[in-house]
């Protein structure tokens, strides 16, 4: 089961802090991050890519689901 981070409705830079925390905790695998603004999509994507994770984004209504993956 992938770890998920619910960062909806949080102001900068909290979504990034929560995402980094989760990524540093699991090291590799899959993490799902929920955000609700494009700003946070960009911010969390940049933060994850910086740590070597691959990011895909799907829009589900008003919510963006970021799937972060890193091979072991």
């Amino acid at each position, binding site marked *: *089961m992938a*770890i*998920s*981070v*619910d960062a*909806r*409705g*949080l*102001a*900068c*830079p*909290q979504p*990034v*802090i*929560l995402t*980094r*925390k*989760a990524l540093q*905790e699991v090291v590799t695998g899959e993490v799902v991050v929920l955000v*609700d*603004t*494009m*700003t946070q999509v*960009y*911010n969390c*994507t*940049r*933060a994850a890519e*910086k740590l070597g994770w691959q990011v895909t*984004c*799907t*829009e589900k209504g*008003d919510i963006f689901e970021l799937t972060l993956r890193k091979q072991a």
Partner: protein
Amino acid sequence: MRAFRSFLATRPGIVLVGLVLGGLAVTLQKYGNPPNMGICVACFTRDIAGALGLHRAAAVQYLRPEIPAFCLGAFIAALAFREFRPRTGSAPFVRFVLGLFAMIGALAFLGCPWRAMLRLAGGDWNAIAGLVGLIVGTAVGVQFLKLGFSLGRSYPTGTVAGLAMPFVMAVLLVLAFLHPQAGDNAALFASRDGPGSRHAPLLFSTIAGLIVGFLAQRTRFCTVGGIRDVILMRDFHLLSGVLAFLVAAFVLNLVYGQFYPGFTLGTNPDGTVRAQYAAHTVHWLNFAGMVLAGLAFTLAGGCPGRQVFLSGEGDGDAGMFVLGMLTGAAVAHNFLAVGSGPNAAAMVLAGLVVVVLIGTFGREKLPVAR
């Protein structure tokens, strides 16, 4: 899913926008805005407070069209790119208080982070203490955030709530053009001399403001965010835009002949010191004011410009921060706490106490769900 990342969200994009914004700012100075004050969210919000009669400082009253245009430019960009999302509920009153004290700190220094850079780009070395203060304040804010500071989530709200701030700003912009005079000693007030009397042509300021708002919304340009992201995770994305702003302003200042280096501008024939424009040389106060501002901006999630742009995107909490700044400007002037004024130190100290208390006790559990 639309284009995952537009050009403006890339590093070259934000650098380009930083260059445009910095260039526009000093060009506004060339065409009439006060020296080293082409764009200043703090000063201009303060001037608007004066125009509305919220304070009585006769030299700083003018309904600056740039601020409403920033909000409306961001509003247009958000609508055009389907990013207009009415939302609120993340401790609006605390954000009002943060906005109020951020403004008190910024006005002790005499400028927002944007103006701090414009002052530096114009040769006003007093800006250095302010910028160091801004970095320190932001660093302290980052520590609070790392320890779990949060003002809680915002939640989607109705369209009316999201439109409220753009509507208010549109009314201000219309007022700026119509400039109604209710009568003697009544709003709108307009300075006859001093910074409030110096402004670029209304239409130029408005168009420049709309461009700034539009581009800033697309790039998420944020001065405090730039410093914060470097401290938090060595990410230079936003800072590269901020540095581009500084470089463009500096180069164009040289081109326009607007660069006057020094802590002061020398002495007058009668021996008195000529200060840099809208600046003072009390370095510790420049520093402390911007520590307060930087901390308050960081806890609220962004610099004053960013708060205005967010309010245009439908963020009602950012709108409360902007109203806090408007009120803070009035408080700072009415209580003589602006610049090196007699009560500036006391007000900045009080602000630091309040904002540190908010940073210490503002906690909301945000667990990482498994």
